[in-house]
Every structure is written in C-alpha cells, then in structure tokens.
C-alpha cells in the first residue's frame, strides 16, 4: 500500500518515497505505522538517548530496608548524603519507583515476597544488589535458610560490596547504574 492509494497523488511520488530511508529503514515501512514500529524506531535512533537521559537522571528507588544496609539506606536518603542531588529519591511503594535495591539477606520465606515487589514495579526498572548478603549470602553464605545467589532471580545491574556499604557507596552504585543506562548496557536493555 502506497501513499497514492490514500491521497490522489501521482504514482511517481510513491516510487520516489520508496527510495527514502530513515535510520537505515525504508520510509514506507514507517509511514503506515503501528505502535510496535514506533517503538522499533525509538530503539534505533537518538530519541532513545534522550529518553535514557531522562530516565537516568530520575532514578527513584524503593525504600525497603531489610537489614544492616537498610540503616545506611536511611542515611543515604537524609541530608548528610542527600541523594536528591542526583535525582535519586526514596519512595515507599513499588508502584512509583524505577530501581529496587536488594539491601539484605533473602531467605526462603522472604523470596516470594520480594519477587512480588519486583513484579509490581512498572517498567522501565532496574535492580541493584547492595551489601554482601544480597550478592552472595555474605556471612551467612552456608546457612540452610539463605538464598546465596540472588543473581539467579533478579537481573542485577550493579553489585555494591560492603558490609554494610558506606552511604558513599550507594552513590557510587547509582552512578554506575546511570553510566550503564547511558551506555545502554543494562541487563534488561532499556
């Protein structure tokens, strides 16, 4: 289907348009378009960079303290370290956030709950593992009740070691995530 089918135009215009391309794709593919096609084009082009610039500068995270790292997470959100400087802001509900911080030991009993929280977060979303327990089980790596490989359940983008990490390390981790989003190397591919 060409443009001359819709608007009375000479067929020459159609033939001419078929030669045109936009970012390597024929323009006619885009002309009569669907939402999917628009998404495809956004994926390819510099529009995505603009979107990612916006995303990386407003990473709201889920305030969900689980252990020692949770205490440092409270401090990270408070004036002494002031995460708002980077557009990072704590929220209390998973419906309003972009980043989930796993800040402690995941046990057999808590795994379904935290998975549920992760699935409640709207896209786009990222996940960070903060502290030894979230990365590998930490001091409790051989316990009968601890899930010692969190990476199997969540697409973790940034690993921040520390027991617990200083609030500076939270900032460092978030800057790493911002860089990763900018370079488009995050695990879920935004």
């Amino acid at each position: 289907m060409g443009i001359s089918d819709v608007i009375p135009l000479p067929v020459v215009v159609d033939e001419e348009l078929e030669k045109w391309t936009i970012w390597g794709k024929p323009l006619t593919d885009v002309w009569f378009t669907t939402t999917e096609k628009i998404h495809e084009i956004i994926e390819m082009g510099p529009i995505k960079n603009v979107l990612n610039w916006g995303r990386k500068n407003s990473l709201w995270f889920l305030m969900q303290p689980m252990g020692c790292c949770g205490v440092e997470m409270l401090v990270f959100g408070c004036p002494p370290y002031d995460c708002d400087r980077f557009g990072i802001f704590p929220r209390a509900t998973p419906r309003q956030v972009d980043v989930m911080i796993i800040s402690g030991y995941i046990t057999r009993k808590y795994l379904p709950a935290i998975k549920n929280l992760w699935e409640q977060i709207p896209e786009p979303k990222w996940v960070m593992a903060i502290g030894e327990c979230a990365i590998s089980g930490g001091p409790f790596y051989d316990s009968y009740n601890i899930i010692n490989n969190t990476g199997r359940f969540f697409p973790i983008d940034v690993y921040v070691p520390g027991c617990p990490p200083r609030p500076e390390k939270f900032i460092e981790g978030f800057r790493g995530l911002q860089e990763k989003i900018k370079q488009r190397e995050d695990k879920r591919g935004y």
Partner: protein
Amino acid sequence: MVLKNLKMTLKRSVSGVEVTRLYPEKTMDLPDVERGVHVLDIRKCIGCGACARICPNDCIELVPYKRGNPLKNKKQKYPQIDYGRCMFCGLCVDDCPADCLTMSKVFEIAGWERDDLVYSPEKIAVGKYTDQELAELAEEARKAAEEKKRKAAEAAKAKKAKAAKAKAAEEGEKGSGEKAAKKKAE
C-alpha cells in the same frame, strides 16, 4: 505554639553549618583505621595462608601469582579476595604474621558483574617487582635451593650416622635392661 516549634527549624536553616558531604567531588576524611579494600605488600607476603584460614566467610583463596618474592614465598601463591563475600571484619589483617596484608581507605569497588568483585593478587598488590628484579630473585632462589639441597644431603648423612650410633647404643641399653628384668624375675 506553631511559631515556637518552627523556631528550631528556622535556627537550623540560618545557622550556616554545612551537613551534606559532597561525595563524588570531595571524599570525607576517613580515619587511619578505616577498613576498606585490602592492600597486599607483595614483597613481604610469605604465602602462609593464615588469612584464608581465619576468614569467617571463606572468601580468601590462595592463587598462583608470579610477581612476588620467591625467596620468601616458595609456592608463589598469594591471596585472592572475593569482595562479593568479604565482610571487612579485619580478622585477616589482625592474623597476618608478616604484616603484609593491610586495609586501605579506598572503598569504591562497585562492579557491573559478579566477577568484577573478585580481586586477584594483581589488583590488590603493591610493591611489585620488575622483570629484571624478578630474574635476579629467581637466580638467588635457585642458588639458595641448591645450597639447601646440599645442606640437606649433608644433614641426612650426619643424621644417618647419628641414628646408627643411637641404634647401637639403644640395643646395648635394651640388652642391659633385659638382663635387669631377668635378674628381677629370678
């Protein structure tokens, strides 16, 4: 009432004390005892593995590494630390007999992958030898080994002779002991 409660807030806001630590631009002054990333003095390490044994998290592993001092560390094995599991308790540092493992003030070690957090001796070592120094040390180590071999052979010889002597003496004693026992029995 409200004004009275607001007094504190207002006082705080005009006091001019800066509380925010501007981290990426300025790092705060950390104390000397800060427990951050390890530093391994490769010239001192004797590869005894005390750190790996004391580690409660089992995160230190001895791996082969060629840039150390072969005179002190014959097996050429040095600690590799998995920061995905290390809890920075400092027990390894306290237990190090050669005082070669210390903890620095560096804390920035976030990684994009799990494997980024495993720090090989190459990453934590300071005072690495150059190639020339290494060659000299290897030569020295070879000489020392030869010397030791020679000494060991001598010692073995001496030991053998001593053992033979001792055996002879023991047999003599045993004989006398038996005689005594016989006498007693009679």
